[in-house]
């Protein structure tokens, strides 16, 4: 076991330059330039804010490792949130609402999986389609209005604490550990890089590759549902365009984290770093009171720089 861990550790070290380098650099800059930055409340602030994105980025890592993509995940999140809200309002029962939200998320995830695995439609297009469908449903269900009147209890999911730890962090941590376990300690996880790297091999090994693929997209949808839960609680409301476009943030986080779009090369911890880096960047720029326009440019630069550093690493190898 030990040398295995070591081996993993080394490969991890090998990966670090790209994203972690940027993260450290940003941290140094902001800490030195803004007194408010490196305070405990602000840092926990950053982490809490990153929780929702992480929930999307983790399954996105799996999906990208299968040489796939899920553009619908942001819209599905929104739809889950809308469903949650309307069920909560109409029935007044939160548990029911949660189940409904997770169910709709899972359903869309599996729908993606089915379209991609069985209809053989390329993921980009398939999820572009379901993106439209989910977004449309949000608008139709709400007629553009945001839904309010949530039971107050909902509020605590985002603002509550467990043993002094903000609840979103607890959820995010659990999600990370779970996904890590799946990826590195289960059959399903073993098949993720196989789907991206050599699908034939999987078939010859007698694995039902389509089913595995569908399950992976299903997980994506489910996590979107959980994220929807957090977002709804954060707003005590649901809004039909609340998380539109978040899928791209998630994909960017994964890419920044060093996961490749080809051959099933991926790294879950990198994704965590990627998410935090984006959070740190936005928060730091805010504290530095930069004009919003400059913040926009910086997000773009972050993506490019991180990927470029990764590229350099590849060239050196």
């Amino acid at each position: 076991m030990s040398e295995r861990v070591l081996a993993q550790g080394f490969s991890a070290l090998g990966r670090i330059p790209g994203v972690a380098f940027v993260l450290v650099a940003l941290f140094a800059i902001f800490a030195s330039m803004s007194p408010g930055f490196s305070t405990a409340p602000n840092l926990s602030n950053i982490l809490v804010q990153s929780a929702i994105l992480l929930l999307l980025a983790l399954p996105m890592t799996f999906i990208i490792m299968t040489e796939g993509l899920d553009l619908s995940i942001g819209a599905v999140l929104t739809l889950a949130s809308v469903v949650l809200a309307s069920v909560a309002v109409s029935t007044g029962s939160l548990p029911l609402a949660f189940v409904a939200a997770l169910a709709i998320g899972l359903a869309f995830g599996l729908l993606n999986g089915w379209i991609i695995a069985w209809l053989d439609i390329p993921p980009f297009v398939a999820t572009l389609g379901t993106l439209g469908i989910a977004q449309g449903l949000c608008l139709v269900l709400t007629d553009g209005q945001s839904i309010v009147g949530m039971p107050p209890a909902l509020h605590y999911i985002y603002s509550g604490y467990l043993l002094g730890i903000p609840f979103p962090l607890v959820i995010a941590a659990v999600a990370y550990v779970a996904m890590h376990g799946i990826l590195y300690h289960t059959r399903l996880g073993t098949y993720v890089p196989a789907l991206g790297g050599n699908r034939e091999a999987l078939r010859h090994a007698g694995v039902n590759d389509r089913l595995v693929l569908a399950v992976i997209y299903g997980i994506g949808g489910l996590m979107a549902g959980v994220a929807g839960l957090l977002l709804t609680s954060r707003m005590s409301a649901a809004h039909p365009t609340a998380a539109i476009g978040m899928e791209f943030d998630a994909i960017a986080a994964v890419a920044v984290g060093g996961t490749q779009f080809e051959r099933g090369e991926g790294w879950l911890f990198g994704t965590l770093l990627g998410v935090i880096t984006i959070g740190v960047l936005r928060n730091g720029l805010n504290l530095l009171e930069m004009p919003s326009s400059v913040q926009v440019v910086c997000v773009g630069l972050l993506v490019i720089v991180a990927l470029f550093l990764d590229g350099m690493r590849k060239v050196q190898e």
Partner: protein
Amino acid sequence: MSQAEAVAPKFKITLSRDVIDVAYRLLAVALICIVLSLVSDAFLTTNNLLNVLRQASLVFFMASGLTLVILTGKIDLSIGATVGLSACVAATIIKSTGSPWIGGLAAICIGALVGLGNGLMVTKLRIPSFIATYGMLWVAQGATYYYMSGQSVYGFPPGFRALGSGYLLGIPIPIYLMVVFMLLGNFFTKRTTYGQQIYAIGANSVAGRLSGIPVNSRLNLVFILSGAMAGLASLIYLARLNSAEGDIGETLTLPTIAAVVIGGTSLFGGVGSLFGTFIGGLILTLILNGMNLLSLNANWQPLVTGLIVLLAVWLDMKTRSKTDSN
């Protein structure tokens, strides 16, 4: 040997695969038109059809450049932001100099520059186009915001605005432009060695490179063209709306991609055509037009678009799998 008989039955289909793709789409257009003309007598009028074409032209200009990129198997997510940036810069220049020519040139140059940036990131820094152009999207958008600082620029010389809203022999000028560029584009893709090489790169870039195609410079070329076309689109936009704001580009990218995909261009590259893209854009425009004519709730629009995307691609898979089998 069995090769021959293996080949014979499928031969005809192979011959006309592109034709089939386009035929399917023309059929779809026809169907939509029939339905719309049945439910709304306002639909099948010269005015409305011209109006639809004019609206489709804007999509086409953006989508045509993007089609080239996608034919090489890459993607350009920055297209909307590029339109926004070049529109805003062009607008201010036209206002300050009063010369549409300088402004127009600027728009196209800026588009081309952004495209070049994308190209270099993909070819030199080896960043996947999806991410590189996503980064560029933010950079361009930020630049636009910074440049406009929340203001809007408006009121251009009539001569320039004719480009978007003018008529010639009763037909809107954008339609002429669209036709011209479609012919140019089809010539470029089907009747020049560049076009052949672009398709080849999309089909197998490694083989392309080892066959002496300067792959990187061709990739740069398509990204530049894509950007320049975005610049051109921004001019049409300005001429039509007679005003520019920072948020122009935001909502344009995904519909543009949808248009290309509905048009039958494969995201794997190597398969597709500009004419298909035109039809793709046309279908999207028809949907919007129909919804307005019937004053249907616009909320359904994304849903319908999504379904059409899936349907179109699914049909392609069906027809193509026939020809590509074994």
